[in-house]
């Protein structure tokens, strides 16, 4: 696509020193850095204006104390690992259940139009229910304990997995099915070589959504219906009116999910779709090997 | 009468990379056209004809030399027909013609309707371009160009993207409208037969942007592509292009 501006004027950077500084800032890393710096500056400004809001320094100091188990003053000591691990356990359990049930549901909905008509509206309603509602309901159902967060994760994440898997199944064109039938390919082989690889990419997209939504859900659920964990600890500081603690835990919460997404999920998704990229790659190598022979 | 004059117009494009040379698209082109004439620039790709048209319309500017249009000293009104229709898809056909008009809505609408009738699309005024065929859209483009009452009408290979039958029909329609409205037309094409069929003066251009030949065509209107006289002239001009290829080796490429 033509990269010059839509109105036909290409604003070239001036060749002098100012231009080069501008170039540094507009490069990828420069822009990213500027964005984070700008964000921190805005945060600090907001903290100055709004009396209740804690600034970046107190928040990060808090996080450090909390993680290292230091003293917050008085008898309050930093607690991190015990809550984090508990939450991770609940989250993982709920997630696994969500993926399995969601995938099964998705395959059902995607393959048979009858099930699609039957379940689609219900699925829409479940997709639309905000995580907070599940947090409320599970707390009322299960009381304070581990079950509420686990079930919340399951209920918030499963619909997203189902929708994506259904899309994946529907993406397999009828041509391929007909071809398989024409060649008399047995169902087990079809499952392994046709259905699963095609669906995998969508499955991973669904899992990625499920993780992001589910992580939200577990936090909210623990806020209302748990006695320990990330959500509970966040509420602990909020109820104590110690906003730097409250914001600090939210920051921990966000950093975890952003890192998880960038470092783990995206590479996995690329791996899952490698058959698509490999196809393009192999045709290139075939061409070059033919040219050189 | 209006006079369009090209004086030593040259256009050089800077080199794309360090190793290339700058591209001389137009090389000291000079000619004049006056009044109710239909002038066609013909030549192979790379001969600079479209660039010359861009310079005339004001979209581009010459590296040296000048293009001047003398008529009452005012800036000329220009009508332009592109290769593709370039209609605003979110406006009706009529609104597309109103878009380019500077007059009040009532007058402009009346005028627009007149020109749409002239191209045979009078009853399609309220449709969207998406509902018309390619040929019809191009006709709207032609109506639009005429509707601004231009002092100068520029056309850049307007029929090259249409099928042969539609194109021929539009060529005949164009001749009729031109004879009726008495406009000055500068037409660009690579199709020699089209040039001979439509114009009363053909300027052959060579790669490198030079004028190779300037030929008057005296045949009476209306002309058809199937006319014998047209075919004869076309053969003559193609012959001269052979001469040009022999003289200028670079004419073989591009």
């Amino acid at each position, binding site marked *: 696509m033509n990269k010059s*501006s839509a109105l036909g004027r290409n604003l070239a950077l001036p060749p002098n020193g100012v231009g080069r500084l501008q170039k540094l800032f*507009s490069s990828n890393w420069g822009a990213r850095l500027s964005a984070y710096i700008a*964000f921190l500056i805005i945060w600090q400004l907001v903290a100055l204006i709004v009396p209740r809001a804690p600034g970046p320094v107190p928040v990060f100091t808090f996080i450090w104390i909390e993680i290292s188990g230091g003293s917050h003053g008085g008898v309050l000591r930093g607690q991190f690992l015990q809550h984090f691990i508990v939450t991770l356990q609940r989250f993982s359990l709920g997630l696994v259940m969500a993926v399995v049930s969601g995938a099964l549901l998705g395959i059902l909905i995607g393959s048979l139009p009858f099930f699609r008509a039957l379940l689609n509206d219900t*699925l*829409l309603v479940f997709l639309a*229910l905000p995580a907070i*509602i599940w947090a409320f309901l599970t707390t009322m159902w299960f009381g304070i304990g581990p079950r509420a967060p686990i079930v919340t994760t399951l209920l918030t994440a499963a619909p997203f997995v189902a929708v994506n898997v259904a899309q994946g199944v529907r993406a397999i064109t009828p041509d391929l099915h007909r071809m398989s039938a024409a060649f008399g390919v047995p169902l087990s082989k079809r499952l392994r070589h046709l259905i699963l690889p095609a669906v995998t990419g969508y499955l991973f997209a669904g899992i990625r959504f499920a993780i992001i939504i589910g992580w939200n859900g577990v936090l909210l659920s623990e806020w209302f219906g748990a006695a320990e964990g990330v959500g509970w600890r966040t509420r602990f500081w909020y109820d104590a009116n110690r906003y730097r603690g409250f914001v600090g835990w939210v920051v921990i919460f966000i950093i975890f999910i952003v890192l998880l997404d960038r470092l783990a999920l995206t590479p996995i998704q690329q791996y899952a779709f490698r058959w698509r990229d490999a196809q393009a790659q192999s045709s290139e190598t075939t061409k070059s090997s033919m040219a050189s022979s | 009468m209006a006079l369009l004059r090209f004086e030593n117009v040259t256009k050089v494009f800077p080199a794309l990379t360090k190793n290339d040379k700058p591209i001389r698209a137009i090389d000291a082109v000079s000619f004049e056209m006056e009044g109710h004439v239909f002038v066609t620039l013909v030549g192979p790709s790379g001969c600079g004809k479209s660039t010359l048209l861009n310079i005339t319309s004001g979209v581009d500017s010459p590296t040296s030399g000048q293009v001047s249009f003398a008529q009452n000293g005012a800036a000329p009104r220009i009508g332009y027909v592109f290769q593709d229709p370039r209609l605003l898809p*979110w406006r009706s056909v009529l609104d597309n013609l109103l*878009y380019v008009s500077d007059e009040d809505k009532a007058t402009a609408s009346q005028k627009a309707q007149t020109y749409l009738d002239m191209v045979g699309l009078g009853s399609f005024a309220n449709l969207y371009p998406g509902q018309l065929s390619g040929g019809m859209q191009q006709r709207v483009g032609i109506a639009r160009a005429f509707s601004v009452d231009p002092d100068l009408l520029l056309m850049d290979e307007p029929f090259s993207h249409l099928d042969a039958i539609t194109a021929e029909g539009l060529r005949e329609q164009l001749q009729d409208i031109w004879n009726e409205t008495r406009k000055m037309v500068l037409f660009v094409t690579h199709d020699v037969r089209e040039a001979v069929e439509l114009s009363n003066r053909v300027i052959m251009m060579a790669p490198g942007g030079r004028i190779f030949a300037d030929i008057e065509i005296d045949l009476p209107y209306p002309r058809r592509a199937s006319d014998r006289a047209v075919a004869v002239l076309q053969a003559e001009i193609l012959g001269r292009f052979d001469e040009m290829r022999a003289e200028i080796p670079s004419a073989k490429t591009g």
Partner: protein
Amino acid sequence: MTHMDLAERQARQVEWIVLIKRGQHFGAILLGWVSFIGIWFLLSRFVVGPILLPDPITIGIKMGDIISSGAFVRHFSSSILKVFTGFGIAVLIGTPIGYFMGRTRYWKAFFHDPVMVAGSVPGITYAVMALVIFGISLEGPILAVALISMPYVAINVAEGIEGVDRKLIEMSRVYRRTERHILRHVLIPSIMPFAFAGVRLSFALAWKVEQLTEVFGSSGGVGFMIRKEFQDFSVTGVLAWVLLFIGFMLLIERFVLVELERYLFRWRGPQESELA
């Protein structure tokens, strides 16, 4: 049997098949609803008990109460108002950002990462921000909606500008159209489909974030009422409010937005729109 009779018979057979397939389709949908409510009823009466899961009838009655007492209209309009105000702010700020991103390489590089990050921040963050800044307020939910929708608007406007057909701009220049003319007749109509897509995409996110913020930090609106029911330990109340609210939101998405889109873009001709 003549050719005509045979052709007529076949045509009628095809009509029947189409009718039956349609009937099956709607039948399945109906069955879906019926079984959903049926299973709910069974769970409530025989498995879990009406305290934990009230049966559909009880909830239906409660929903009726909420509507007839005027409470629904009052709180729903409060929530919806906040959503649309937030949207308005998002459009006001996001459109110029998107405009500059689409026009100039420099601004695109500058804004690209902040907008991308802002768009991937979980909604809960914005809810918390709004909460901390405004406490219990009207402005909190509005800010949350504005923050979460703005990246969508900016990105979509930027794409719209980049996608503006340069040929149309060139044509406008040749015909000596003024910049204002070009803005009004070429740029804005080009951007509109994209801006609208941005609104549609972020609508679902926006009202969820608004509800979340409202639950924690508002003194009115549906979220507030839901929290109140939770504190009263009324599953009936929570479910009644939620179902009413979601029902309306889905209706708005399915009918108002889709119809609006169809009207705004009728020049595009018949389009295929994908739901879910």
